[in-house]
């Protein structure tokens, strides 16, 4: 796949672009760079991140990132070549706040709202309840997509233990709200005749009572009250969760796998790639971040492991150094150090190429985009840095050791 068709597929034809990948691979930076590229293509793009560090806010040049979108100033966009119809905003997800927003929206009455927000189970569990953290993130994606303010929402996926939890979250929440246990707790009498209740009554209830005795916590009562308060919202909630799911898994969303260059990072990425197939979504591309690339194309054989450059070549380099820099430091030592530094860098290039080879072969065989973002010697901390990342992703410029200029 060419960079142009990748941009077309992911950034122009979709409403949502999801970056999946394991922790620590630089997903946030990649997501921001993709959003910047979309803006350059004239789209109104929003990057939705979960990275609480100030770094992205700093890099984007906005005051701070909050639960509401922050737009980049027009002059900053002009400097990056973003056309007048394009725009770039960023939003940092505050998970807890998002869930509270939902309660506010769907609660039947002020009283129900207060009852939920005050409930001890809600207070502790709005972060643990059946994938609610991941659900909140996806809910925000839906809200932003539906707002009409943006053509494309780029999502930096939440830091779930399992990197694909967020895809299951809407379904899990629906299942939870429809589950027997919720129905039983809300309508014990209604559920009593149903199949399966017997085991629950004789088994689970005893265990719960035991747990209450052991723990001294009125667990059942709190859960029951919480769910009762929740019931009024559950119809609206269910509908909404179903729409979130359709948006995410349907043709309006595109997916990119972001991988790190190491052996372990590639193994995890490969596992993710296989798992995401199970959701019926296709990856548009694979981007390997922070990969070491050789500066001028092909790595010379004399720098490969086990090889050594001809002594005459090293002496020639020493002579050139003597002419350019004089006798101090000793030119031959300098030349030897230069060769060993180049060998050291070459080893990193070889290592990354070896680790990513199978993933690249897969992407190419399947016709997915394969992009590499070079390891920069410094952190990406400003808009030009993000623009360089975007350039690498879309192979617009050959700057293998990006920060060298």
């Amino acid at each position, binding site marked *: 796949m060419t960079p142009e068709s990748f941009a077309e597929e992911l950034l122009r034809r979709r409403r949502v672009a999801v970056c999946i990948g394991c922790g620590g691979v630089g997903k946030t930076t990649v997501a921001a760079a993709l959003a910047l590229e979309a803006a350059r293509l004239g789209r109104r793009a929003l990057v939705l991140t979960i990275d609480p560090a100030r*770094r992205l806010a700093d890099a984007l040049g906005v005051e701070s990132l909050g639960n509401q979108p922050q737009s980049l100033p027009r002059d900053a966009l002009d400097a990056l070549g973003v056309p007048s119809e394009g725009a770039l905003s960023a939003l940092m997800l505050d998970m807890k706040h998002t869930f509270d927003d939902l309660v506010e929206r769907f609660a039947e009455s002020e009283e129900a709202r207060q009852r939920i927000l005050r409930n001890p189970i809600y207070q502790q569990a709005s972060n643990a309840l059946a994938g609610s953290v991941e659900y909140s993130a996806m809910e925000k994606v839906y809200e932003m997509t539906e707002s009409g303010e943006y053509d494309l929402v780029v999502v930096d996926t939440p830091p779930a233990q*399992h990197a694909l939890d967020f895809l299951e979250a809407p379904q899990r929440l629906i299942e939870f709200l429809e589950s027997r246990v919720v129905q039983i707790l809300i309508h014990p009498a209604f559920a009593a005749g149903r199949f*399966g209740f017997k085991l629950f009554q004789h088994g689970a209830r005893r265990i719960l009572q035991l747990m209450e005795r052991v723990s001294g916590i009125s667990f059942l009562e709190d859960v029951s009250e919480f769910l009762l308060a929740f019931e009024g919202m559950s119809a609206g909630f269910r509908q909404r969760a179903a729409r979130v799911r359709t948006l995410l898994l349907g043709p309006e969303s595109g997916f990119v796998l972001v991988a790190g260059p190491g052996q372990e990072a590639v193994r995890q990425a490969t596992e993710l790639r296989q798992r995401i197939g199970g959701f019926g979504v296709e990856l548009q591309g694979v981007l390997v971040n922070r990969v070491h690339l050789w500066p*001028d194309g092909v790595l010379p054989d004399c720098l490969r492991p086990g090889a050594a450059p001809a002594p005459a*070549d090293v002496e020639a380099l020493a002579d050139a150094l003597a002419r350019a820099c004089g006798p101090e430091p000793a030119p031959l030592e300098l030349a030897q150090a*230069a060769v060993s530094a*180049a060998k050291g860098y070459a080893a990193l290039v070889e290592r990354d190429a070896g680790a990513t080879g199978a993933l690249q072969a897969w992407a190419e065989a399947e016709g997915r985009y394969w992009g590499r973002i070079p390891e920069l010697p410094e952190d990406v901390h400003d808009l030009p840095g993000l623009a360089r990342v975007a350039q690498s992703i879309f192979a617009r410029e050959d700057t293998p050791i990006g920060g060298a200029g």
Partner: protein
Amino acid sequence: MHRPAAGAPDVTGASLLERRLVIVTGKGGTGKSTVAAALGLAASRAGRRVLVAEMGRDEALVPLLDPGGPPAGHGGRELAPGLEALHIDPYEALAEYLGLQLGGTRLVRSVLRNQAFHQLMQAAPGWRELITLGKVWHLEQMRTPAGRARYDLIVVDAPATGHGVAFLNVPRVVASAVRTGPLRRHTLAVEEMLEDPVRTLLLPIALAEELPARETAELVRRVREEVGIAVDRVVVNRVASAPFPAGLDRLDESLAELPQQLRCGELPSAGALTQCARFLRSRHELGHHYLERIAEQTGLPLVELPELAEGVIDPGSLGRLGEALVQAELE
């Protein structure tokens, strides 16, 4: 080791291998599981009977220590003489615990298999952390028939930073909320184990990079303020060695003086040589900056683990990392 700043908290300094329980934590991607595996391996090679315990959905430690081997599961498995691994499953641990309380596990298991109960438990906060730590406590208490501790050292691969603090804090929260009953007694025993600096050490794993450095400082601060578990050093993983020989620290600047198109025989162009050298120097300087920041913000000595040039984690390189971890104490 970097020395802590003046006025830093007292460092207990006892050997890693003398602890009963070392809890390894760090931001995702820092190599937390690798360090836990390396520590387990080094300790077992030093003659300790070691258990490495992990949690979470997938096993990460066992594939490192025994590539291609079967998973350890909740029942555990011996990977090498003196080295066992275990993957704690909170539901299994709950069944064991309630079974002990009830005097039998059959009813408990049938209930835990019940889907409705399962869904209810999914919604309940805190119990997974508590039961997992309870299981660790139980393992720490295990004795051989001769009365010795079954394991000299238990290495726990804990959840990533952030989650890690919440994880370790659960016994305190429960103990403050639950005033009477067996659960309170058991929770206090777990808390006592965690807060005993002779037995237990928290080992944060950092990288000499911006976000991991920031998160490590935050972790150490929160552990001191909220958790009360001993932390006496920070392990910084994948530290690049000095890129140039002594006296040649400005190699890249010398190379930049050359005509950049120049090629000497088979060697890369002067431009490429300059870029390689410049890259290695910038990266090293940046890494050094973050090392200093971690030391300054935590006030703790740092244990630097080398970056593995080959980048491949296998039992051989794990052995070298383990040696470096233990070696750092002797310096």
